[in-house]
């Protein structure tokens, strides 16, 4: 099961995962928990109704420093960077010249000159090379991948659970803000961000401090439930959030992924702008849609999608959605098949199963 490749890395919390009975899998170059003993459904339920605890230390943390960061990053990404105020986080996408995506990321602006850039683990080496290949004036980069830890607490009880450990009023933080503070007496960055569709926080800290915070959270009278990458994927899919390699790839860019809101064509120039503008102008690009299946058979990534018996696309992600009690999926389909309400077929082991195109997200929290 476990890749014997010696280059596979462990996060600072590896021992803690093993002690909790996690099933570990290789992911993004690290050996990560895919689920713990209670299973994905209970982990999902904890995040939707109480709180879940995640080790995301496999994600790459790049430190950006200098007066030139905003202007430099604006030329490499589709969303605005220089306009981010200190203490604010913003989602963004690095594109290639053809309008496909190198990665989707979050910029956290810590103060005027210091930023944290978080990229997907699987893209860490590619993204580091991409940044090195596009040096900026007044920009210093430091790759902290594997040296810094990231612990996420996600769910409606997150603020109450984490708040007692932080030297700041995190309940007063707005969504997509960040601050440098101390957590259990150690320096950390706390951000009100996440990838679950729930309220929650992400704590960036030194690897040597990770176990102390993790253990302290689990020692609470009402602790968060440790959650693995399996639950995280189901949660993000329900929330309509793209996963790189599925809804976005080097060939599927942000316009096709229905992330038009994040592409700022008002910026003077950025890599991929012309290609993305041409896509929008032409209008007939294939795109990511949500599917709800009629039946009980789950759709999975790679399954063919059919309209009137014709193979028109493929499933990009699929799972049971516990919040809906239905099987959901994303699929890449032609514009003509992308309207909500369109009836579509998913071929599963030789049989076509009916589904309906729906608007994303599948799940939206009530508060």
């Amino acid at each position, binding site marked *: 099961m476990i890749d014997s490749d010696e280059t596979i890395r462990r996060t600072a919390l590896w021992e803690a995962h093993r002690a909790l009975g996690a099933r570990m899998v290789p992911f993004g170059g690290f050996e990560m928990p*895919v689920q713990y003993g209670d*299973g994905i*459904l209970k982990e999902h339920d904890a995040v939707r109704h109480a709180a879940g605890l995640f080790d995301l230390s496999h994600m790459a943390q790049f430190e950006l420093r200098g007066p030139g960061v905003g202007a430099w990053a604006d030329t490499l990404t589709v969303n605005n960077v220089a306009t981010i105020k200190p203490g604010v986080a913003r989602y963004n996408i690095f594109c290639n010249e053809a309008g496909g995506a190198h990665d989707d990321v979050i910029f956290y602006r810590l103060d005027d000159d210091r930023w944290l850039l978080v990229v997907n683990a699987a893209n860490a080496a590619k993204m580091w090379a991409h940044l090195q290949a596009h040096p900026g004036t007044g920009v210093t980069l430091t790759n902290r991948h594997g040296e810094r830890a990231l612990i996420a607490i996600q769910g409606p009880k997150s603020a109450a659970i984490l708040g007692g450990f932080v030297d700041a009023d995190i309940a007063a933080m707005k969504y997509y803000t960040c601050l440098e503070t101390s957590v259990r007496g150690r320096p950390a960055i706390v951000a009100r961000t996440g990838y679950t569709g729930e309220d929650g926080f992400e704590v960036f800290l030194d690897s040597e401090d990770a176990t102390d915070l993790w253990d302290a959270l689990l020692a609470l009278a009402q602790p968060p439930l440790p959650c693995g990458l399996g639950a995280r994927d189901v949660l993000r899919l329900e929330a309509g959030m793209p996963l790189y390699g599925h809804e976005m790839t080097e060939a599927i860019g942000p316009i096709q992924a229905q992330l038009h809101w994040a592409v700022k064509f008002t910026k003077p120039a950025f890599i991929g702008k012309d290609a993305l503008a041409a896509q929008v102008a032409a209008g007939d690009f294939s795109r990511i849609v949500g599917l709800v299946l009629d039946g009980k058979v789950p759709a999975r990534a790679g399954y063919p999608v059919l309209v009137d018996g014709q193979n028109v696309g493929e499933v990009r992600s699929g799972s049971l959605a516990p919040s809906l009690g239905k099987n959901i999926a994303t699929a890449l389909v032609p514009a003509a098949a992308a309207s909500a309400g369109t009836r579509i077929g998913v071929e599963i082991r030789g049989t076509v199963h009916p589904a309906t195109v729906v608007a994303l997200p599948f799940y939206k929290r009530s508060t």
Partner: protein
Amino acid sequence: MAQPAGLLYSKDHEWVKIEGDVATVGITDYAQASLGDIVYVELPRIGATLAQFGNIGVVESVKAVSDLFNPIGGEVVEINSELEADPALLNRDPFEAGWLYKVKLTDTGEQANLLSPDKYEALIAEA
């Protein structure tokens, strides 16, 4: 943990309970625990003839599709229809209420290709 006595086991983590010329088939506790929360089971049709160790269906957890292999050859005479509405029965009670289907045996000699409880226990201890 000891495996239930009176059953035979396959290396693919199915169990077989033989009564006369009919065998009841299921997946082991080890299998259900490895799969995680089971959300869908695709069973063979009644009347289908299944070869020993043939791929005859799937068990799907929240995140993964796993092939189901038939541990002993025969004709399907009954399926556990409760699994359609409640696939989690496989997680809760894999050796009893979560049985999958019954086959009328083609060749009772195929039992010799299956593992005793002790040998299956040794197999999963190595995993």
